[in-house]
């Protein structure tokens, strides 16, 4: 009998963990490659001491700020693009210009403009979120079928009502894709930016946690930091976004 998907993958994880443990033990060099058990104890120690939760909290607050500002700007840009031809051209031009540019490449410039602090990180986060969300939302609006548009107009809805009650739900699958891509860019950018310079006024995020412990040669802690990033990424992807998807586009049969 074939195994269920989840069981197969769990088994695979257990096997990988066992290989890690055995290899690291045989290597016996905690400075290069700590064992899984050492990593786990570093992880639990960092959690218990409050150091890792603080770092996570710091990272999440930054992420939240950058994501929120990015979304707000994306809404403005999309509105402009939907209202006028020139706005649509502007959005397309800007997106194709900035899409190939990894946000992190803007960090040195941001540091000059905004100084060493949260503002610089938020700037690169906005760049990571803005284009993906604006482009997908705009494409989503345009893909709302002419029939659905006519149905909405048939009800005599006001412009605001038409946008919020027909266009946004109609474009929701694309909007959600934009939010997911934006999140993925932002998360990677944020960790990278924190590695670059993670701390301001003595507090730092997960990237900084990794960087600091590397300097202290506490390699199990470095691994614990990496593991945290993976776990949190999986949580957002498979719990948060998956739940939203299940309750909306999957339920509505609008999954693209």
């Amino acid at each position, binding site marked *: 009998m074939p195994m269920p998907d989840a069981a197969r993958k769990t088994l695979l994880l257990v096997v990988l963990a066992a290989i890690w443990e055995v290899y690291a033990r045989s290597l016996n060099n905690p400075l290069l490659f700590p064992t899984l058990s050492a990593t786990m104890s570093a992880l639990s120690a960092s959690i218990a001491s409050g150091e890792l939760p603080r770092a996570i909290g710091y990272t999440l607050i930054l992420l939240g700020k950058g994501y929120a500002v990015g979304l707000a700007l994306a809404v403005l840009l999309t509105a402009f693009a939907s209202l006028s031809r020139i706005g649509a051209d502007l959005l397309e031009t800007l997106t194709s210009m900035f899409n190939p540019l990894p946000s992190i490449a803007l960090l040195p410039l941001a540091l000059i403009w905004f100084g060493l602090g949260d503002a610089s990180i938020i700037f690169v986060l906005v760049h990571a979120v803005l284009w993906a969300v604006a482009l997908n939302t705009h494409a989503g609006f345009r893909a709302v079928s002419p029939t*659905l548009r006519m149905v909405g107009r*048939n009800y*005599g809805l006001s412009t605001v009502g038409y946008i919020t009650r027909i266009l946004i739900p109609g474009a929701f699958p694309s909007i959600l894709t934009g939010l997911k891509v934006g999140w993925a860019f932002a998360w990677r950018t944020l960790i990278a930016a924190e590695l670059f310079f993670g701390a301001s006024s003595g507090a730092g995020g997960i990237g900084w946690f990794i960087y600091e412990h590397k300097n202290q040669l506490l390699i199990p802690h470095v691994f614990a930091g990496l593991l945290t990033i993976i776990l949190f990424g999986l949580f957002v992807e498979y719990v948060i976004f998956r739940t939203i998807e299940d309750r909306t586009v999957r339920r509505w049969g609008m999954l693209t």
Partner: protein
Amino acid sequence: MAPLLAVEGVTLRYGTGAHVVTATERVSFTVSRSERFVILGPSGCGKSTLLKAVAGFVSPVEGRILLNGSPVERPGPDRVVVFQEFDQLLPWKTVKENITFALTASGRVSARDAEAQARRYIEKVRLTEFADSFPHTLSGGMKQRVAIARAMAMEPAILLMDEPFAALDALTRTRMQEELLQLWQDTRFTIVFVTHSIAEAIRVGTRILLLSAHPGRVKAEVDSTGEDVADGNGQLLSSRIHEMLFAEPIHADA
């Protein structure tokens, strides 16, 4: 009695890039209350565009469209359209929500009464057990029944149907035609029904407007009893319509 709907010398054009297509040319007709008025013609006769003009989605470049004596300027809930496409239901709302939303968004019914009205019309189209289903779980015929229920629940002055059964299989199509006629028996609402099928036009219509193609011009108007009856010369109505639509007389004005 003044007609409910008067279409007077309406010319409709739409642009496809560099070309301007004339969909209909100086089409006139009137529809009275409780009539089942069918617009029949081959593809390219502008019948759908004509219906969209009555709905207010397209403006005539010539002529005018009057509903109860006042000109049609924009879409409104007094002229509800049932489209051919299955995606006319809002996929993010259940069957019942699709109807209650239509009722409240258009301001036809208060939120309090919308629920009961939606239930009543869902029952009319015999979909009570699917009231809480999402559209994507329904068959094509069921979706069209929801669309009809939604349009009827809004109790418009005129129900506009744009080939609503054209995408259905033949059996479902015949059943839907019967159901529509039964629903009409109940409330005798006014219908303007667009189709390219002669058989459907005869079944559904009390009066049939025949349009020629490229551009759409009125060829004739005939009455129908719902049956494909023979006239005094023994010619069936369907073959008479077919002749009028497709026999190409030499146009003096061409």
